[in-house]
C-alpha cells in the first residue's frame, strides 16, 4: 500500500490533484475494526475542475503513461483499485478541507476526520453506512462536540436522532 500512497502523492506533486483524503471503507477502518472492502476511495479536489467537461481526464492520462489500467470506475495503482471521487456536496468539501495529515506505511497521507466520516455515512444512509456508523459510535475515538456541530451545520440532526432511535 506504501507504493500506492506514493503514487497518489505524486499526483499532487505534479499538480494533477490539488488535495485529496482517504475516505470510504479504507478511511473508516482507520478508526474502527476492519471488515472486507475491495477499493481505496479518495475524495479529491482538482484545480479548475469546474471549467472542465471531464475533470478526471488528466488522472487517466497519467495512469495511461504509468501503465495503470482502468477497471470500471477504478484505476489499479500498484495492486490496489483506487476510485477518485470529486467533492460532490458541501459536507464532503468541508470534510476534505478539514482532513488530517497522517503517516501510513511510513508515507505521509491524508484522511478524513472521524466526525466528518460519520456525518457522510449518516447523509449517504446505505445499509453499510448505517452498520459502520453504529460501529463508530461504540469503537471510534471521536469528538462529540465537533460531531454535533457538523450535524447542525449540515442539517443532519433530525436524521441522526432518527438513526439513534432505530439503532440504540
Amino acid at each position, binding site marked *: *500500500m506504501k*507504493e*500506492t500512497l506514493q503514487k497518489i502523492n505524486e499526483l499532487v506533486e505534479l499538480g494533477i490533484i490539488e488535495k485529496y483524503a482517504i475516505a470510504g471503507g479504507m478511511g473508516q*477502518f*482507520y*478508526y*474502527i*475494526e*476492519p*471488515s*472486507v*472492502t*475491495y*477499493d481505496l476511495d479518495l475524495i479529491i479536489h482538482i484545480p479548475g475542475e469546474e471549467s472542465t467537461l471531464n475533470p478526471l481526464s488528466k488522472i487517466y492520462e497519467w495512469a495511461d503513461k504509468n501503465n495503470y489500467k482502468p*477497471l*470500471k*470506475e*477504478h484505476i*489499479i495503482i*500498484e*495492486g*490496489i*483499485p483506487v476510485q477518485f471521487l470529486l467533492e460532490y456536496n458541501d459536507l464532503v468539501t468541508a470534510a476534505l478541507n478539514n482532513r488530517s495529515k497522517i503517516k*501510513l*506505511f511510513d508515507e505521509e497521507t491524508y484522511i478524513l476526520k472521524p466526525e466528518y466520516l460519520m456525518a457522510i455515512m449518516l447523509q449517504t444512509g446505505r445499509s453499510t453506512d448505517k452498520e459502520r456508523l453504529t*460501529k463508530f459510535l*461504540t*469503537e*471510534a475515538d471521536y469528538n462529540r462536540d465537533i460531531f454535533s456541530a457538523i450535524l447542525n451545520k449540515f442539517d443532519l440532526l433530525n436524521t441522526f436522532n432518527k438513526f439513534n432511535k432505530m439503532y440504540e
Partner: protein
Amino acid sequence: MNKNYISHIAESKVDYHRSQAKLSYEDKVKIIIELQKIDTEMRKNNKKRSASDKFRMVWDINI
C-alpha cells in the same frame, strides 16, 4: 438461557471489536486482504453472491 451469561458474551464481543479497532492501520490492511481472500472463496460457492457484478479483486500488494 441465563441472562447474565448472554450479557457477558455480548460485553466480551464488544470488548473484542473495540480492541480490533485499536490495531495499527498496517495490521488492519493485512486483515482486510485475508478477508478479501475468504470472501472471494465463499462467493464461488454462493450463486446469488457470485452473480453480483460489483467490482472485486484481491489486492496484489506486498506488506
